[in-house]
């Protein structure tokens, strides 16, 4: 019995309406305009993932918070656990954009990285 889900692709601002049909291991995606849509559609019904953009405490910088993100999408179910890890961390300025703040967060294989350069004050 095939399972059909209607999704909105979040890969880009176009927001394509996807239809994902899952029949056992066979998953087909329609309605997508690009390859990213297909990847998103398949992932969303197998292992939905999200990028987490947030901040960490930053000492000695121009701002008291440094924006960070997971360098890649992480399992959606782990968002709050990862947030807990991120909330424990503080970094000292200066920080370079892309600098790894937490390597391999919770063994996801994904780093938490700085999303801006933070000069020391």
């Amino acid at each position: 019995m095939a399972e059909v889900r209607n999704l909105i692709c979040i890969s880009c601002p176009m927001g394509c309406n996807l239809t994902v049909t899952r029949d056992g291991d066979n998953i087909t995606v329609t309605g997508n305009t690009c390859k990213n849509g297909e990847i998103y559609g398949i992932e969303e019904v197998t292992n939905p993932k999200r990028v987490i953009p947030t901040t960490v405490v930053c000492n000695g910088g121009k701002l008291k918070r440094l924006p960070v993100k997971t360098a890649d999408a992480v399992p959606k179910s782990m968002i709050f656990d990862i947030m807990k890890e991120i909330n424990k961390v503080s970094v000292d300025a200066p920080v370079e954009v892309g600098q790894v703040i937490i390597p391999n967060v919770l063994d996801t294989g994904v780093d938490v990285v700085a999303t801006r350069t933070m000069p020391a004050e």
Partner: protein
Amino acid sequence: MEKVYDTVVLGGGPAGLAAAIEAKKNGAEDVLILERDRELGGILNQCIHNGFGLHTFNEQLTGPEYAERFIDQAKELDIPYELDTMVLDLEDEGDLKRIHAVNEENGYQTFDTKSVVLTMGCRERPAGAIGIPGFRPAGVFTAGTAQRFINMEGYMCGKKAVILGSGDIGLIMARRMTLEGAEVEAVCELMPYSNGLQRNIVQCLDDYDIPLKLSHTITFIHGKDRVEGVTIQEVGPDLKPIPGTEERIDCDVVLLSVGLLPENEISRNAGVEIDARTNGPVVSELRETSIPGVFAAGNVVHVHDLVDFVSEEAALAGKGAGKYIQGTLDQEPDFKTVAGPGLGYVVPQNVSLDNVDDSITFYMRVRNVLEDKVINAYIGDEKVATKRAQKFLPAEMVNFKISKKTLEKYPDGEEIRFVIEDKPVPKKKA
């Protein structure tokens, strides 16, 4: 004699940066950016979420990352800038423009310049403008103010939130509040559709089971000193609250995401013609305003939903400023643009084909959700181009590209009219 700049850019956000860079690349040598905040990057510095730059860089960047790429370019080009600097006035003295500005370090300064690019951006509509009745307690924030507090200063502005308005900032803030430990009780939207991008509804609301209440508004704010709750009500097709649908939701913070307004005090005072539909300057294809040598781009011209298009538009303005200085800018419009019924506006309002390279993109917004429709461009009675889309949404700016070649076919044309029409039924194959 005082120094005369080629181009002074008012605002160092995404529009200002792109305009300054492009002006410099197109022949403006002495370029200066004046920024009122403490660093370059504008509102992007607080937009720490990802989703920027797909069009420009073909990757998903956060706001600060996107800004940084432009800041780096500006620095590579040695474009000077002054921070914490507030422009008080722009005077048009014909060939020269004079800018009055103040900051702590250099005091009161005037800058003489041949050209100006207005990139002041926009501001949020405040609570007072939408006139929610009730007390006027602490705890009512525009979404952007809350965003700055949380993302840049590291302070929470509430534990239990109701958000009014489903614009992108409202949606993004629903997620941000949730990730930082607050509860978001509901997002209310006056219209029967969301004003944010679909993807943001999915990843900011649906992911966290935050209800989106369409056709609902806040009709009373409770709490004398600090917000204690709101009364929300369903609205009818006339957008008026329906009696009997009142529902009280307890919360300690209300975030408003109820629209953005281009910030044109300086433009107005300088005498720049403002389009009542966009609340921004009337501009040409290279974003020249009604004052020769004064250009404008980004949210100060019309509110954009994607920063990529802000950069794109600002690059046009920067190029325009460069051409203006070199005396190669054609300032005689060949066409005016007209927004047909159902279209909120079209930018640019004027087109000189000589300044166009290969094609020109018209930006416009539909007033309602449109399905099975196309937007056609007419010159005289002739249909010259068609814009197709799965759906047209008021939240999503329409980019309608028309080639220069097409427009050149109508040397006697005066107006390009954009009209919403039914999608033609596909012809069946015989």
